[in-house]
Structures are given as C-alpha cells and as structure tokens.
C-alpha cells in the first residue's frame, strides 16, 4: 500500500513512466478487442516487431548519415518516424494482399514476424550505441519518459480513443458482419482503413514507450480477460481498458518494489489475472453442472 501511495504521489520521480504505462494499459486493449474480434491476433505480435525494426532502422540510418542522435527530443522523433513509416507501409501491403485474397495471411504474418526480428538484430549488430537503446526497449524497461513524449502519447492515444468511441457502431458492424455492412451501403474499405490506421498509430507510438513485448501483452491479454467476464463489444472494451489500466498500475508498483523491469512484470501479472479468471470460470461451470 505504501508503494502504491508513493508512486501515486504527484512528485514521484518516475511519474511519467507510470502515466505512460497507464495510458497504454487503458487504450491498447480498446484496439486489441478488434484484433481479437477479427481473428487478427498474429498481427498484434508481428506489428510491434515490425515497429521495433523501424526504430532500429531509423537510428542506424541516422547514425550512418548524420552521426549518433542526441539523447533528446530528436531521439524520439527519429524513432517515431522509423516506427510509423515501416508499420504503416506493412499495414498497407497486408491490407492490399488481404483484399485481393492472395496467399495465406497467417503465413505472411509469421514470415513478417521472423524477418522483422532478424532485421532488428542485424541492424543493431552494426551499431553499438543504438543497440543499447533498443535493447532496453526490447526488455520493456519503462523508466524515464520525457514530458514531450508523454504529451505526444497522450495526444495520439486520446485521438485513438475518440475515434474508437465516435465510430464504434461502424467498426463493430464491419467487424461482426461485413456482408450486412455492405448491404446497408457502408463503405467497408474506408472503415477497414480507419481501423488499420488506428492499429498502426497505437502500435508505433506504444512500442516507443513500452517496447514490443509489453505492447503485444496489453493489446491481447486484457480483452481476453474482459471477454471471459462480460458480453458485447462495448462492454468488453470498457472492462478491457479498466483491466489494462489496473494491470499497468499494480504491475508498476510491483516492479518498483521488487526492482524488476516494469514491462515483463506487467505482462506476467496480466497472465496471472487471465489464469485466475479462467480457473474461476471453469470452477463456476463445474459447480453449475454439478448442481
């Protein structure tokens, strides 16, 4: 309890890291609900990896042509550009291939995950300074987030939350029943592109703050927990956001107290919560059948 009070203090030294984690913990599950509903979970693991490769590529490119970036705002901007450009390019290609129904989607995503991971490692091998920064990203060490990064994260994720709230019914319709959406005259491609853009921004921004592992964890696990507790896309979204924020808060407190890396602590905690909820559900079903 003391730890919780300490980290919630407005003058807490690592408060930006806590706030960043809370924002991602609350907003990423809102996007993850659509990834699960559309059975696109693998995209949730591949895109953060692609985004990380984009960050590594941007740093190596900058080092090669301009020397090492200074550890300030430029650092974040370079990473953001690299992450966004590669993530959006991949989303666009995947969407086009999916629309033309060419090849096996799962195969493409698996290949993407492997190639992006390998590219990240190879890029890092060529640049020692970049390697140190990216390794902490890969480990999910959420320690220091400058004010400007937190502001960009808040603006970006605020916009995502607003879009998902305003266009909830359109996004649910094209997710649950595309044929119905077309018969009602909805422009399915436009809504698909909006959703893909939202996924792209969520991942490329989130990866810069918490890294690919934690990003994937927050995208997928809270909606899975919420889906076991409540019904309906809107209710699942709200509960998933609350669960994600709760995990981010308690995970941060636990990591701070035990001196563990924050990201992996969050993901492990999310896994424990999911296991407890699943076990509780199984127990309830068993007792109902026995009664």
């Amino acid at each position, binding site marked *: 309890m003391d730890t919780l009070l300490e980290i919630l203090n407005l003058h807490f030294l690592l408060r930006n890291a806590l706030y960043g984690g809370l924002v991602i913990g609350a907003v990423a599950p809102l996007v993850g*609900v659509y990834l*699960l*509903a559309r*059975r696109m979970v693998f995209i949730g693991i591949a895109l953060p990896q692609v985004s990380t490769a984009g960050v590594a590529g941007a740093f190596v490119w900058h080092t090669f042509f301009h020397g090492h970036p200074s550890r300030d705002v430029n650092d974040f901007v370079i990473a953001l550009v690299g992450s966004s450009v590669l993530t959006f390019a991949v989303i666009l290609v995947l969407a086009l291939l999916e629309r033309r*129904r060419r090849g096996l989607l799962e195969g493409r995503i698996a290949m993407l995950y492997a190639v992006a991971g390998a590219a990240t490692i190879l890029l890092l091998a060529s640049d020692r300074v970049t390697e140190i920064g990216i390794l902490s990203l890969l480990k999910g060490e959420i320690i220091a987030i400058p004010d400007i990064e937190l502001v960009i994260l808040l603006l970006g994720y605020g916009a995502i939350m607003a879009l998902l709230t*305003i*266009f909830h*019914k*359109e996004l*649910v*319709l094209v997710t*649950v*029943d595309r*044929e*119905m*959406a*077309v*018969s*009602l*005259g*909805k422009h399915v491609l436009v809504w698909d592109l909006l959703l893909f853009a939202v996924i792209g921004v969520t991942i490329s921004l989130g990866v810069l703050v918490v890294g690919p592992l934690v990003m994937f964890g927050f995208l997928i696990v809270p*909606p899975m927990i919420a*889906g076991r507790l409540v*019904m*309906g*896309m809107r209710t*699942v979204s709200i509960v998933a956001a609350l669960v994600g924020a709760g995990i981010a808060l308690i995970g941060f407190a636990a990591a701070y107290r035990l001196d563990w890396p924050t990201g992996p602590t969050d993901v492990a905690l999310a896994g424990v919560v999911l296991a407890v909820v699943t076990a509780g559900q199984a127990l309830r079903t068993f007792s109902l059948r026995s009664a």
Partner: protein
Amino acid sequence: MADALISFHDVALGYDGVPVLEGLALDVHRGDFLALVGPNGCGKSTILKGMAGILEPLRGSIRRGSGEKPVRFGYVPQGETIEMVFPLTVFQVALMGTYGRIGPGWPVTHADHARVRACLDDVGMADLQRKPFPSLSGGQRQRVLIARALATEPDILLLDEPLSGIDVQAAQVIMDLIERLHRERRLTMVMVSHHLKALREHEAVREVVWVYEGKLLRGPATTMLSPEMVYRMMDAEIG
C-alpha cells in the same frame, strides 16, 4: 419494367473475377414473393448477394430502385455464418439493423431502441433480448436476424436459406413468420431455399425461380414446385 425494385441486365456474377453465373436477366417487383431454388452450389446465394450489393457484377448491370429514393435491403444471412469472438446480446445484434439509417459518428437514439424492441416483439424474441446470440437455437437465431433486417425498415427482405440447419417445427414457425410479414407489412420477399415442401405449403410464395446450370427458369409456384417439375430438375441433377 419501370417499377422493378431490382433489375438484372445480362449480369455475370462470380468470385475473384471468375464468373459462376452469366447472362442473368431477372426483375423483382414491389410486392413479389420470390423463391430461388436449385441444387447445392448452383449459385442461389450468389444471386441474392448480387441483389443486396454484396457482390458487384463482373459484367452487365444491376439496377436497384427506379427513382431517386434508394432501395433499402433487409439482408438475412444464414444463422451460422455470424461468428462472434465477443458474443453480442440478441438486442445488440438486432440493433445493428438501425446502423444503415444513422450517419457515421451519430449515436443510436431511444427511438431506434424502441423500434428494435418492436421488431424483436414482432418475431417473438423480445423476451430473450438479453441472451447471448450464440446461445440461441438455429430457429431463434433466424428470428433475431429477421428482426435485425426489419430494423433497417426495408423495402425488400432478402433471406438466404432461412430454414437450413433447423428442425421441421422451427422451420414451420419461420415460414409462418415470413408469410405474415409479407402479408401484414406488404414486404417484398426474395428467399433462397432448398426446402421445397415448406415452400409448397405456403401460399404467399407466388413465384419460383429454378437456378440450374447457370440458367434461370421462372414461373408460378404451383407449376415450378409441381412434382413433375421437381423430378425433372432432380433427374437432371442426378444425371
């Protein structure tokens, strides 16, 4: 004809650029009750999807409506085609029918909620509105999907195999419901089915289109569903 709600002119329909049906000519008029029948895989559902705008023609043209006002479709897919990772309630599924009339970003109003409740009541599903949709039986699912289609305030109801995967009694309930909606709401109906007996037993089904080897044979239900006609078609199918 000028008052046709849907007109096919030399239409080719198919998937991935490969035509399944070609040279289709078909009119659906206001007040029609048309049944599309034929062997499995003959393209009945493909025609229905062409009518609803879900499939665009590869060749030819499909005209929907005759004047300025666009035709509103109430599309009823096969119940088992809707899979949900996060189950929606019966009410939430039916509510989706109102989304076509509400602009992007605009909220669903209390009036829309009331309309959906009335539609669920009309199909006898109001008591189950809080139930998860996937927990329903096949017949109950079909009734909810019909309520959803009614919530679009349609000019025409397009039903894709509404009797498939359900028992005889449930099929009877669904057919009675469809017949009543046609009679009371004066709804134009196009229905895909291979339950010929059920179609024969309902007088509302006035016209039948046999879809066979890419050709359409249209005529009065009494003739097209006569044992002679059915034997002819089935004999041809068997070889």
